[in-house]
Each structure stands twice: as structure tokens, then as C-alpha cells.
């Protein structure tokens, strides 16, 4: 292993991070791959814990072959020492090397350096610092869940949470399930629950067929994805899951825990159609309303955001030199798009860290895939949408921020009579979004109820850090390399 090879820190070992790692390592870069999980795979290729002895994890995954290729590639690189994989490392912030006054510390200003600070293990009481010449952010996305009356009852879980249980722990969250909300994630969740033995009584999706027809141009550009959708449809049919398109959950009922949900059809104005309410007994309700990019680390580095996502150029570079981003942190588009972006980012990082430019001719295939899939996901994003007036269904008593137990009524009062006009002020006035999850869970819901834009809040550190660790860093990097 040559000491002179540049080091790239890749944060996130999902599809994007893995593809980037392999692309960069193949081009003479040493890669430190950092992830909070205990195994590589990210959200998409989430692995069952080894102790569970799952015999056929592939039954829970499609695109198993792609995963096997990535896994083998990673194993090879781990064996030849080109890649170091740091599992159970929770990155709380990434620092550009600079002193307090903003002067570069190092004598070579042309090669800015980075220090990645991560907390170790489930305890997260110790930290390490990882030095690198470049940083590639592949931190993925998190779920967006909108509130409705009863959504805090035990038995109501997020779609991704149900999914993670299936993929990671192979346990069945409940026996009779309803899957509801909007977005492509609901399909694998419904079929996954059914395949694991749950009775899935309904898949309640607020988008309807017409929303897709209107966007058929961009959607037709990705026939493989449409086929994937068709495959889900067949499986839903096989498991007798009743698909209720243009429907929404009005309320979840239960005393101690979830007992049933009321769903209703949506009228042309996006409001529930009177007389269509239907009560479905169930003990599990998996809800999701799409995904939002993780941007905390990028934001802390000063990278420009585009709406809710990290802004990148066609090489996946952010506007901060030495920082790349790929996958769902740059916009939500599924695993295949994350792979393409990761690959392009890894190639660019390798070239740039060696002081050259990536070969434009050779990146055309991945770039074409990226273009096609981005158009597809934009089409999807437009088609899958929560009901236009969902916030009207949230009663004043409904708790919208669980950590701080803030009700929709309190949020409405902050806007109505206290003069809050943006999400930040609503938060300060009500404490909504200030608790343990720092608004990751409730920000969209609070913004919707308040009727203001869901501007992404700056959330640093990306993980809560013990003060003692900050005060006396055990992780001070060695002064020189």
C-alpha cells in the first residue's frame, strides 16, 4: 500500500457509498468507508443480523445479484487493504482543517484536509477522528411521516421502521396490518409484511392512477422500474392485499394500542369524500409519506443545498472543494440511481484527488443512467403526494411533535396570534421539533399544520455528543501526516 495515495472518506455504506468506494478504490485511492450500521448495505441492502441465522435473506431483496457484486468487490478491497470499513461509527460532524480565525492550518492550502469525527459503538461515548483529503457524503435519506389523529398510538409504525424490522430482525411487527401514506416504499413494505406472514388488509395510497398517467412520459423512460412496480402489483394480488388508491387514513383508533383505522376515498379537491369512510380492524399500521435527504453533515461543511437536498454538479461535486455527495442525500430516487451517482462521484473523487479530471467519455453510461432515473424519480415524486389538504384532518388535540408533546392546536396558535411566519419561529414558540429527534420526525408535519414552508433546519451535531467528549477530545488527530 503506497503511503502517497490520497485518502477519501466515504460516509454511508449504502448503494451510493459502496459504488463510490469501489469506483474510487479501483482508481488508486485509499478509501475509509464509515457507517453507523454494523454491516454494509444501507437502507436498501439492509442485512439480517448474523446471529439470527437467516437462511434466505435474498427472499427479502430484489436485485440480490447487484448486492452480491458490491459485497464481493468490497471484500476484495478490504483484503488488499485499499479500503478500510469502519462499522458502528456515527459521524457527528466533519471539519475542514482551519483555525479559529479561518486561516488554513496546513502549509498546503491547495489540498484542503478534512477531519471526520465519529462516535463509536452503540454506547457512543468514545470518539475517533478520521483524516482524509476528500469527503464523499452518501448518507441517504430518512422517512417523512405526516401526523393524523391517533398516529402516536402504539402499533402505528413508520413504513421504513416496519421494513427495517423485516430486513434486519426478521420479526413480524404485528399480525393484521394496514400500510398507508404515499410513495413507492409502501409497495415493498406491504409485500414484505405479507410475505413474512402478516395479513395485510389494505394498502392505502393517496395518489391515484391518473397522477401517473399525467407523468407517463418521464415514467416510461425507465421500463425496468415500471416492471418492478408491476412485479409488486402481482405480489399484492397474490397476497390478497386490497389496494386503495386515492384513499387516505382519517384516524387511528385504540385505547391502549392500535385497534383499527378509518380510511376514506379522496375527492377531486383532495379532501375526503363524504360517506366513504371505512373502518378496518388491524393491530399494525405502517405509514410513510416519502423520504427526505440527510443533509446535516453537508450543511455543517457549508455546502449549498437545493431545496431539501445537497446541491451537486454533474461530477457529483458539492460547491465546497474536496466534498462530493451522492445517493439520496442529493435527492430521493431509489437504489439504482444511488448506485449510478455513487459510481460517478467515486470516479470524480479519484481523478480530482490525483489532480486530473475524470474521463468524460468513460462516464457516459453511468451518466445516462443517472439522467434517465432522475427524470423517472421526478415523475414519481410528482405523482406520489399526500392529499392536498391533509393538514385539515389534523385535529387541534393531535400531538404533532412527539418528543416535546406539542399539539396541532399550539402550532396553530403560534401562527394565528403570536405572529410566527416561518418554521423556525413556530419551533421557538412551541418547542415543536426541539426534542430528541430534533424535528427529523415531525418537521414536515409541523410545517404543514402551520401552513409554512418546510425549510430544512440546520442540525448539528448530526448525532448528540457528550460534552466531555467535546471538551477534551480523545480524538485529536496527529499533527502531521
Amino acid at each position: 500500500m503506497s503511503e502517497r495515495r490520497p485518502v477519501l472518506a466515504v460516509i454511508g455504506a449504502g448503494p451510493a457509498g459502496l459504488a463510490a468506494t469501489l469506483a474510487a478504490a479501483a482508481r488508486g485511492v485509499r478509501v475509509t468507508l464509515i457507517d453507523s450500521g454494523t454491516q454494509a448495505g444501507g437502507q436498501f441492502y439492509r442485512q439480517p443480523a448474523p446471529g439470527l441465522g437467516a437462511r434466505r435473506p435474498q427472499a427479502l431483496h430484489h436485485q440480490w445479484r447487484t448486492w452480491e457484486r458490491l459485497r464481493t468487490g468490497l471484500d476484495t478491497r478490504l483484503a488488499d487493504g485499499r479500503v478500510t470499513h469502519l462499522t458502528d461509527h456515527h459521524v457527528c460532524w466533519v471539519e475542514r482543517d482551519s483555525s479559529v480565525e479561518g486561516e488554513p492550518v496546513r502549509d498546503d492550502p491547495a489540498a484542503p484536509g478534512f477531519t471526520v469525527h465519529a462516535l463509536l459503538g452503540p454506547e457512543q461515548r468514545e470518539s475517533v477522528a478520521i483524516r482524509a483529503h476528500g469527503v464523499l457524503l452518501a448518507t441517504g435519506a430518512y422517512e417523512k411521516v405526516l401526523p393524523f389523529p391517533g398516529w402516536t398510538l402504539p402499533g402505528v409504525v413508520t413504513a421504513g421502521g416496519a421494513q427495517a424490522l423485516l430486513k434486519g430482525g426478521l420479526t413480524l411487527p404485528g399480525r393484521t396490518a394496514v400500510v398507508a401514506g404515499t410513495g413507492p416504499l409502501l409497495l415493498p413494505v406491504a409485500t414484505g409484511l405479507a410475505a413474512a406472514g402478516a395479513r395485510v388488509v389494505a394498502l392505502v395510497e393517496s395518489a391515484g392512477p391518473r397522477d401517473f398517467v399525467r407523468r407517463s412520459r418521464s415514467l416510461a423512460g425507465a421500463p425496468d422500474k415500471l416492471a418492478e412496480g408491476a412485479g409488486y402489483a402481482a405480489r399484492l394480488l397474490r397476497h390478497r392485499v386490497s389496494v386503495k388508491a386515492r384513499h387516505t387514513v382519517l384516524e387511528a383508533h385504540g385505547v391502549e394500542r392500535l385497534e383499527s383505522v378509518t380510511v376514506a376515498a379522496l375527492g377531486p379537491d383532495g379532501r375526503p369524500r363524504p360517506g366513504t369512510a371505512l373502518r378496518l380492524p388491524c393491530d399494525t399500521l405502517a405509514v410513510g409519506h416519502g423520504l427526505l435527504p440527510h443533509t446535516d453533515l453537508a450543511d455543517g461543511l457549508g455546502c449549498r443545498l437545493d431545496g431539501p437536498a445537497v446541491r451537486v454538479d454533474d461530477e457529483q461535486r458539492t460547491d465546497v472543494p474536496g466534498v462530493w455527495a451522492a445517493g439520496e442525500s442529493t435527492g430521493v430516487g431509489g437504489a439504482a440511481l444511488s448506485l449510478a451517482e455513487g459510481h460517478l462521484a467515486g470516479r470524480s473523487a479519484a481523478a480530482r484527488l490525483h489532480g486530473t479530471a475524470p474521463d468524460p467519455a468513460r462516464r457516459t453510461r453511468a451518466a445516462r443512467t443517472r439522467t434517465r432515473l432522475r427524470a423517472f424519480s421526478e415523475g414519481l415524486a410528482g405523482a406520489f403526494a399526500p392529499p392536498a389538504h391533509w393538514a385539515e384532518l389534523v385535529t387541534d388535540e393531535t400531538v404533532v411533535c412527539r418528543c416535546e408533546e406539542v399539539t396541532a392546536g399550539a402550532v396553530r396558535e403560534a401562527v394565528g396570534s403570536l405572529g410566527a411566519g416561518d418554521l423556525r419561529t413556530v419551533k421557538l414558540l412551541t418547542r415543536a421539533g426541539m426534542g430528541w429527534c430534533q424535528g427529523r420526525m415531525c418537521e414536515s408535519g409541523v410545517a404543514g399544520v402551520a401552513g409554512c414552508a418546510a425549510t430544512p433546519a440546520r442540525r448539528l451535531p448530526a448525532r448528540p455528543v457528550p460534552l466531555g467528549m467535546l471538551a477534551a477530545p480523545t480524538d485529536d488527530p496527529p499533527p502531521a501526516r
Partner: protein
Amino acid sequence: MVVVGAGMVGAACALYAARAGLDVILVDRGPVAGGTTGAGEGNLLVSDKEPGPELHLALLSARLWGELAQELGTAVEYEPKGGLVVASTPDGLTALARLAAGQRAAGVRTVPVDASELRSLEPHLAPGLAGGVLYPQDAQVMPTLAAAHLARASGARLETGRTVTRVLRGADGAVRGVRTDRGDLLAPAVVNAAGTWGGEVAALAGVPLPVLPRRGFVLVTEPLPRRVRHKVYAADYVADVASDSAALQTSPVVEGTAAGPVLIGASRERVGFDRSFSLPVVRALAAGATRLFPFLDDVRVMRTYLGFRPYLPDHLPALGPDPRVPGLFHACGHEGAGIGLATGSGQLIAQALTGGTPELDLTPFRPDRFAEEATA
């Protein structure tokens, strides 16, 4: 009259002016408390002020906060919890005692606390401190709630999301109102309560006012049961507040809040409006706080935030009528004390607006004092 800026200071000006019988329009380009008020802490302090005009303003303000608390106390999370200033060395304690003596002469209540008593006041304080002084008049509010509730209680017409683009003046030079991006608001008096942007608003009326930003970071911990009872800080904080240095200064100021989290602030640096995150600053704050309260070692920081204090070169606010522009009043530049000093400032502005004699001499706060210096 028109008040420009719906931060803590503007809200207080609106309240006292309305109570003095004036018709008030409160304008802000953003929401209520969207400026520095929503990005700072809410300490109402007399303890950190050296004897002088600012201390007089602080004492007046403390009294008025106490009165307001009768009606709005819970809504604004008012807590008269007192401040405890500690010294780590005998020399530091001597300096602190000297400061306290001067403050006492100016009317501040101070209670010397010797080393052995410190821990009965604050059981979780680090051992080995030299001693301290308790300031029972120090209190606390939640700034955003305070600004919003004072604005509401004033009954002023609240115009948020409206940017003032010009201060309108008549042929005689007197103020006629303000121009905004959504039409003119006419009034014979305009109060500049634009905080860190007070210099810009003054310029809209054609007069200079050298307000500059001084950045501060605050750390917020996970919610905890009450373990820090007072607002606790190290004696060197007083020196930092009055410092003229542009470089970073951090001294630990630790306080519990009604909502549970402990706030640790605040750093002071002059770096313009630089919003980028600074790990060294955050580390220095953490180090200071854990030195005072060792139990904080294991407590997690949930978030950090930053704001820009509005400061004027002599660290005093600009308060009162501007002799250069009849009808223009200033109430800005309160630096790191605008929450605490808001009530007194509002009261003095209301007294000046209604032609009465303000209960404090406004001379040290004259808005045109810097112009004179420049020509002198």
C-alpha cells in the same frame, strides 16, 4: 408611530408606547423574533454590568420585567432565579468582590458566597472554587415567547413579512413614515428597533449609525431534570463582555431552562455575518461548562445555534431621539443584553415619544455620539 423590527426591543417599544396611549404599527421583514432575538438566550442580568449607564438601564429593566411578569410571567417563562458568579482563584475572587462593591453602590443587590457555601447553592458545582457572588435580581425569559407575547399584549398592528425600504421625510426633514415593499406606512414618528441591522435602517433615513455584528454560539443539551439552579458563570465573563478584541472569547455561562435542556453560551467573536459552524468555538464552550459542572461530561449536546449580537463601538445601545432627523428614534445596538434591556429601552422610548422626561438620562445613549467622535 411605526416601530421597525419585531424583535425583543421592538416588541417592548410597541408595548410601552401603546400603554402610553400611542397608535403603534410594528413592522418586520420576517416573522416576530426572526432576528437575533430568536437566536440568543434570555438572561436578564444586572450581574454582568459594570457601574455606569448600562447598569442603570439594566436595573430599570429588571424592575419592569418583574412588573410584566405579574401578567405574562408564565407565558414568557419568566424565572427570577438569580445569578451566581464564581471565581476559581483567590485573585479572581478579589476582582469579583471589587466589582460587586461598585455594583452594590449603584443599587444592585449582591450576596457574597464563600467557597463552603457554593455547593449548598449549586450542589453540582465543581469542587475547589474560590468563592462567588449571588445576584438575586438576575432572571430569565424565553426570548421568542417574550417578544411574541409583548407584541401581542401591545395590541399594535403587526405587519410581518414586510420590509422597510426607506424612511420617508417631509420637506422640513421631519419623518413622515416608512416606505415598505408593500406600500407606505405613514406616521410622525419612527422607531429604529432593527437590532444588528439598525445601521441599515438608520441609513434609510440618511444618517450613519455604526452597528456591527458580534457572533455567538450556544450549545443546547438533552433535557435534564433541574440540576443547575441559577444562572452560573465564571467571573472572567465580565471581562469578555466589555472586551474590545475581535478574537474569539469564550467563558462558560451555564443555565437550566424551564423546558429541561441546559444552555451553554456564549462565545463572542467578530467575524461579520459568517454562519459557518466552528468546532473550536464549540469545543471551548464545552470545556468551560464542564469545568464548572463536571456532571455535564456525560450530558449530550443536541444542537448548536448561532446569532449575531448588534454592537456599537462603546458597547452601549443607541437610545432616544435622533437630533439629526426629527421624528426618528433609535432603540438598537444592545449587543449581548437586548433581551434584558428591552423593557427599560421600551419605557424610555415611550417617555421620549410622549414628550415626557425619560426617567434615565439618555445622554450616554445619544444616537449621534459616534458622528461627533468622527468629526472631533
